[in-house]
């Protein structure tokens, strides 16, 4: 195809303008994804409803676990379980992100984005922004539920803010894994298939039960499972005064998840672009 000289609007914008424009695109795609979650209950249910029910059942049914020797000192089992519920919620937020992204690939929505003059990573970044927002919603929800039903947040307001920040970061980290899964699977039903695995990985960590009370080989697996670092870091400001070490360890666990997820996402995005 031939054309006349290039008009100004077709010329590549400068770096700063491009950065501003990409930020707007990521924001707009993030808004779209949050709206999508609220308009399609199956995206919201795994993040809020399932973990809440799980929390209710666990707390109600196994509340006497706090009487076990060597169980950490807590006000109640609910205080202990809140971290597990938030971890479960953020992991399922990652699965929801995977399903939503895979749907975008299935219906061809990704082509709309890839045919536009934007960085192709924006497709993933927009979804991650939304997953972060869902993480914040999840943290606020579970802290509120906990407080309403008698949980104590020993770390006070600062502790609650640390929990919220960790949950947001964790949701984003699991969002990268979800993005990698969607880009490779390209099918929502395949992405959905990962759902049960979340529970297996969670139960093999300290999310719902103290690591030192688990039986072998679960105990050893939980020791090496980065989710234990995250669960313990989330739990610490709830059941004790705020301290730096568990928070840093949680950040380390999140970094491991995010590192793996980001590497796999970049790989998936590259192969997606090459084989589009």
């Amino acid at each position: 195809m031939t054309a006349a000289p290039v008009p100004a609007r077709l010329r590549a914008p400068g770096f700063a303008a491009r950065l501003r424009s990409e930020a707007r695109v990521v924001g707009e795609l993030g808004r779209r994804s949050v709206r999508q979650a609220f308009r399609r209950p199956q995206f919201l249910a795994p993040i809020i409803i399932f973990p809440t029910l799980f929390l209710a059942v666990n707390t109600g049914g196994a509340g006497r676990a706090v009487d076990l020797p060597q169980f950490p000192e807590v006000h109640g089992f609910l205080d202990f379980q809140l971290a597990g519920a938030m971890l479960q919620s953020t992991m399922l937020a990652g699965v929801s992100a995977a399903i939503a992204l895979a749907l975008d690939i299935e219906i061809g929505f990704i082509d709309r984005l890839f045919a536009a003059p934007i960085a192709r990573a924006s497709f993933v970044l927009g979804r991650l922004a939304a997953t972060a927002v869902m993480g914040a919603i999840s943290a606020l929800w579970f802290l509120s539920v906990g407080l309403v039903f008698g949980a104590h947040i020993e770390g006070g307001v600062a502790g609650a803010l640390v929990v919220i920040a960790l949950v947001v970061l964790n949701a984003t980290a699991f969002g990268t894994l979800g993005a990698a899964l969607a880009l490779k699977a390209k099918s929502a039903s395949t992405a959905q298939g990962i759902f049960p695995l979340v529970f297996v990985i969670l139960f093999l960590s300290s999310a719902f039960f103290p690591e030192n009370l688990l039986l072998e080989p679960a105990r050893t697996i939980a020791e090496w499972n980065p989710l234990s670092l995250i669960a313990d870091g989330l739990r610490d400001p709830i059941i004790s005064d705020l301290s730096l070490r568990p928070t840093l360890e949680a950040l380390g666990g999140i970094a491991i998840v995010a590192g793996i997820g980001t590497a796999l996402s970049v790989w998936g995005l590259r192969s997606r672009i090459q084989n589009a």
Partner: protein
Amino acid sequence: MAGIDLEVSEGEIYAFLGPNGAGKTTTVRMLVTLLAPTGGSATVAGFDVERDAPSVRRAIGVALQEAALDPLMTGRELMHLQSTLHGLPGDEATRRGGELLTRVGLADAADRRVGTYSGGMRRRLDLATALVHDPKVLFLDEPTTGLDPVSRIAIWDEVRRLNEEGTTVFLTTQYLEEADQLADRVGIIDEGKMAAEGTPAALKAQIGRSHLEIVIAEGGSEAAEVVMARFGDPMPSKNGVLMVALEHGASDVAPVVRALDDAGLCVESLNLVQPTLDDVFVEKTGRHLEGADEEQPRPSDLPADEPVSA
């Protein structure tokens, strides 16, 4: 793809015509930078699709075959998103979105979710999203496939209007009529290769003369065949319809009718059949374009006792 070599001039409507699986969509996906070519080169709006893909994307509007629309978004939200993708500031994005929704007749449905739209509405919305940044070149991949005739004509009208405003249009289609009605030039593609290219008129002229199909009142067929043979080469009759390839084209129609009348033969119906792009397709590939018969029924394809129109 093999041996595709084409050039589309600025301001032209170019139709890529071919059956399913011919390579139309693959070609479009390469031209809109969604698929990297494994060989050869292509420039769109003056930019190389591989080396300068972002500039190509700034210059083009794309409406793909699947009408890739999120059913959970409203029309207005989708327009706003598309405007943001093309770097339009917030206020301008809102104004432009509203303007285009009105233009394609979706202003009243703008705040409804896309999932509630009909097929025609989705196509019009898809077309509107492709226009937010006023593209120099518009790619439409089978823009009317699966649409009812009214929706199809609405899309055609809009494409013509855009072209009159200066937009170059590259469309793929498997509908002969679409290519014939809309395109300045047509490229016929089959099995990944370009089978023929030119204006619809030139392509049809390449393959020969128009022919006349006549139904004569009972008992007069043999005499009519003798009369008709004076005006060109007789063709095998089909289902009682007599056919002759006219030596001088349409100008022979009146003399044929007069001659039949002079011979006392009563013409029940008469149809001048111009060569179609399907005839061109048959000539170039040895087979019919899928769906060509359904699209343009001829008297000879109808049962003998069914009335035919002149």
